[in-house]
């Protein structure tokens, strides 16, 4: 989805400011959120479903919230959606039903013949799905070069929506900065993005 989470190339957020001697957690509740995530991720939901849940936070709230506040929102929504907690339980603080059985462990990715190989020239498709995707907006309809083939990964566009993993070959694809950002970018600078096969077309076939 074309949401505010897809931040690559946006302006207006100000400078990058590093905090000196930053603690691992600033507040105890952040560690609790992290723990809840680690105990439930892969057990009641997959990581793509979690990311889709984050992306459904209203855009104004997403931009205002700190990192673990976003996570809390995403965890509450996904656990409710998966029936691990119910809205009345959250409001009342008392459990009314047991947690469901954990998801079965997903099998290994199949071995698939990749369509592309390192050195191939590709063009990314100009896709704008309403649902979750990992093809960033700034890299749609752009020419690039396949650098590495990583084997097959679950396609987030499918796996985030309960439609199964739909394993596909995934590649590290290199783009010239000028292809992405125009003539203001430095010649020689590049951006590499991991992209699934269905995001790509062969350059010669377009």
């Amino acid at each position, binding site marked *: 989805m074309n949401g505010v989470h897809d931040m690559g190339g946006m302006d207006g957020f100000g400078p*990058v*400011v590093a905090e000196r001697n930053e603690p691992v957690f600033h507040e105890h*509740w952040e560690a*609790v959120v992290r*723990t809840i995530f680690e105990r*439930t991720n892969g057990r009641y939901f997959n990581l793509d479903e979690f990311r889709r849940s984050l992306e459904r936070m209203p855009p104004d709230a997403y931009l205002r919230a700190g990192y673990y506040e976003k996570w809390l929102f995403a965890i509450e929504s996904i656990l409710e959606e998966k029936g691990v907690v119910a809205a009345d*339980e959250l409001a009342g603080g008392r459990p009314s039903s047991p947690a469901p059985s954990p998801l079965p462990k997903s099998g290994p990715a199949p071995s698939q013949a990749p369509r592309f190989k390192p050195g191939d020239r590709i063009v990314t498709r100009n896709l704008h799905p309403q649902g979750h995707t990992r093809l960033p907006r700034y890299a749609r309809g752009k020419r690039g070069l396949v650098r590495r083939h990583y084997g097959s990964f679950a396609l987030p566009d499918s796996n985030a929506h309960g439609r199964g993993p739909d394993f596909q070959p995934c590649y590290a694809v290199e783009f010239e900065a000028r292809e992405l950002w125009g003539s203001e970018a430095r010649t*020689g600078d*590049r951006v590499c993005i*991991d992209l699934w096969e269905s995001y790509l077309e062969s350059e010669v076939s377009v």
Partner: protein
Amino acid sequence: MSDQHHPEAPSDVEARTLALESLLREKGVLTSEDVDRVISAYEQDIGPMIGAHLVARAWVDPAYRQRLLHDAPSAVRELGYEYRADTRLVVIPNEPGVHNMVVCTLCSCYPWMVLGLPPTWYKSAPYRSRAVREPRAVLAELGLQLPDAMAINVWDSSSEVRYMILPERPPGTEGWTEEALAAIVTRDCMIGVARPQAPALTGAPR
């Protein structure tokens, strides 16, 4: 606490977190030791010292460097660390004339298995939006001025691959022990927003 990126937690976030935690404990999803275990893991065991160990070993042992670049998870285990992640670690070497850095524009993917949890700036909108488009300006704000002739490769972590940068060994460290070398490899060097310096060459502290 940085006032820019980490506003005071509204009490409702903390209250919601504790309510969810208590509910999940009653349902048997969490135990009371889980939070302490997570805090202790990220405060003691999983942090940039792991990445620094890999880098220092790669600097003194060319065969290890090849294994690290070819199969990073095995190279992590080889040094005695557990590799429990579902995600794959890939190590990208800096080379003469090419500097590499890592970002996740779509969320905050980070090589936590070798660097621990990410700093707040890495997860912030300014870094996520600007690293792919104006990497030189971002690096300058974080204290790194690159020579004009050096090209930049930015790795946008969009899949279940987690990237770590293998910095170049700085001049002035000939004959150093692995331990001494590891001590100059900071977290930021392995994200790619700093470069290791031998102490004699180090400028003003950031």
